[in-house]
């Protein structure tokens, strides 16, 4: 009896968000595909939208959301600090560069690709490259995780950081990697195949239609995150996050569970990498630096570690601020006051302050997850005497 009611509860709460998500996505799509280019619209609105929230910024934010959700599985669910997540982004991006462009011009492989069959290079269908990139990243995730996951949390963070430095450097110097050109070095791989959707192929400037694709990918990530969290694996992750020792005593296989979180997180990184390569129509080695890893971490922390909706909010806010909001605000401010302040240089200050202030005053993030909130404030309960701690728990 009780079991079925719980199961029903789970499915219902897991389905409810789909409606809201679809409506929001649909409104966004209609707005950007039809409403904004419509000529009857007052000119001011068009300008304002393009200044504050152009379609490319929305798409880019969605790519960040995909990756932040992946990082959330590692950091938020399993509680393992990953400071080298950018490596998976890079690998995913280069998967798109290798399998969806004319980079390997001496080969001629076309597997449901969206270009004519006689075009040189490897051209595999976008949807298959997504899977391929995801699995290659997951493989690397397991590869880096397997020998290092028995380390303590901060050592683990360092190993991931090292990995996140090595992989981009491999691509950066990849023009001559033991005699092979694997990445075109600093020149990058320019031009990635359009996305085939049956009726038409989506090139780099089909922002509106690509928005739908990215929304779909994000929805898949949200779905997977929510389902995993409710399931056996997700509960094992939470147990590890809260107390590794207790979890292992209760029979949670530590290594396998942690590796699973790494693999799933890396898979999401691969998805994001492929999606981003189609978004910017190319892969460029200098993009993949340590700042991106921290940027993604800040998204997860700001939004609320472990809470899918919080992470989405955090990713949207930060990627908007970084990509568009700060420059737009800077322009407005400089025009208003006749100054020439370079607002783009304030990103360091902004991210630093976000990380520090969130950790000091609101460790659980903007949209907190209730379990994590309790855990993160354990110290305050320990420190104060029994009467105040009771009050806090009651609140």
């Amino acid at each position, binding site marked *: 009896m009780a079991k079925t009611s719980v199961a029903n509860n789970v499915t219902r709460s897991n389905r409810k968000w789909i409606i809201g998500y679809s409506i929001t996505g649909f409104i966004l799509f209609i707005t950007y595909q039809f409403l904004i280019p419509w000529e009857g619209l007052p000119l001011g609105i068009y300008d304002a939208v393009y200044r504050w929230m152009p379609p490319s910024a929305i798409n880019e934010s969605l790519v960040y959301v995909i990756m932040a959700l992946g990082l959330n599985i590692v950091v938020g669910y399993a509680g393992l600090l990953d400071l080298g997540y950018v490596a998976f982004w890079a690998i995913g991006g280069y998967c798109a560069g290798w399998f969806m462009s004319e980079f390997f011009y001496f080969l001629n492989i076309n597997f449901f690709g969206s270009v004519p069959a006689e075009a040189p290079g490897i051209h595999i269908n976008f949807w298959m490259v997504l899977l391929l990139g995801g699995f290659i990243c997951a493989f690397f995730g397991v590869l880096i995780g397997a020998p290092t996951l028995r380390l303590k949390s901060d*050592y683990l963070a360092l190993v991931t950081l090292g990995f996140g430095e090595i992989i981009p450097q491999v691509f950066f110097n990849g023009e001559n990697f033991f005699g092979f050109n694997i990445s075109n070095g600093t020149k990058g791989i320019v031009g990635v195949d359009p996305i085939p959707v049956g009726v038409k192929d989506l090139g780099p400037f089909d922002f509106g239609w690509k928005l739908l694709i990215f929304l779909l990918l994000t929805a898949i990530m949200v779905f997977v995150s929510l389902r995993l969290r409710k399931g056996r694996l997700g509960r094992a992750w939470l147990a590890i996050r809260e107390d590794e020792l207790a979890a292992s005593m209760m029979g949670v296989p530590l290594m396998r569970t942690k590796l699973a979180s790494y693999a799933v997180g890396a898979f999401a990184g691969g998805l994001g990498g492929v999606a981003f390569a189609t978004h910017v129509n190319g892969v460029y080695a200098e993009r993949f630096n340590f700042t991106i890893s921290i940027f993604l971490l800040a998204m997860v922390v700001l939004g609320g570690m472990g809470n899918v909706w919080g992470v989405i909010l955090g990713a949207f806010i930060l990627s908007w601020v970084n990509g568009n909001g700060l420059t737009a605000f800077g322009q407005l401010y400089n025009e208003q006051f006749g100054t020439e302040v370079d607002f783009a*240089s*304030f990103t*360091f*200050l902004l991210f630093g302050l*976000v990380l520090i202030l969130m950790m000091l005053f609101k460790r659980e993030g903007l949209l907190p997850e209730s379990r994590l909130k309790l855990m993160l404030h354990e110290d305050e309960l320990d420190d104060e005497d029994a009467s105040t701690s009771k009050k806090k728990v009651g609140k």
Partner: protein
Amino acid sequence: MNEGNGVTLAKVVEAKKFSGTPGQIRQQRVERIGAISISALAAVWMLVNLIKAPEQFAQVAISGLRNGLIYALIALGYTLVYGIIELINFAHGDLFMLSAVFSSFFITYWMGADQSNGYGWFAFGLCLIAVMVFGAVINVLIERLAYRRLRHAPRLAPLITAVGMSFLLNFIGLKWNGSTPRQWPTVIPSGDIYIGEIRISMITIWLFLVGFPLLLALNYLVTNTKQGKAMRATSQDRDASTLMGINVNKTIAFTFALGGAMAGAAGLLYQQSIGTTSYNLGFQLGLIAFTSAVLGGIGNLWGAVVGGLLIGLIQGLNDGLPIAFGQAWSQSVVFTILIIILVFKPAGLLGKAVTEKV
């Protein structure tokens, strides 16, 4: 626990009895074999290069050791802080960067010294004191404002705060130094002396003359004074030290001050030997220095020094030798060392393995 290398290593392995559960024994065996084969590979690599180009070898080894001294000074800050509150202070590398910028402004603009003469040496000496105070004050401020409040929080919280601090210091560096690297005049004499065919620059010699006494002074402070004793006690057991009448807050602040002072000195030495500063140099050097601390065994003072010199040596050899990966792969080589060390011997070369008791 300690290991020699070369011939003694084999004896240690034979004499050492593996203990623990079968799984642990297997793991120890794997670790031992991995460590031996990797050090053997490194030795062969060095030997081949030494035979092929002995002069070049000595040359790059010396310049590598010079960088290694700077890494060692920075690594000390990491190791001190990690030893006492088990925090990887990500902001430490950026503190070093700020110190380098501070010393360039101090010597060139505020003191107006731009060549090596009596006044230049005076400015250098004054700057050494000033920059050490500067580093100490900033580090103590960071500890006071951020880390102290998070001392009982889960480990993730202070670590993320440290990353945030690193960004904040980076921002200050960006505003202070500008977004492009800046060239500065140096006040250390820049001549060369020759020992046979090998050229040693005066800067290297002066660096060691300034740096080594600092290391010795720090070691004396930690091992022979009352304050050092308090530090060691606090790092062993914070609660028990409180009961013994040690002011834990003050001791931790003092540790941060020491680490900051070392980073300050490293900043000055770096600025004087390289002559360029840029706002993002702290990140790379900080990571390399941290790798050194881990290599030597984090929490161990001499481990940090040995690790720093070793990493500097390996990096120098890799960058300058005929049979090596070259400068483009410098970073990857260092981080590969870090990963290998963490996989095979997390306690480092001189560190002691700590087992978690339940």
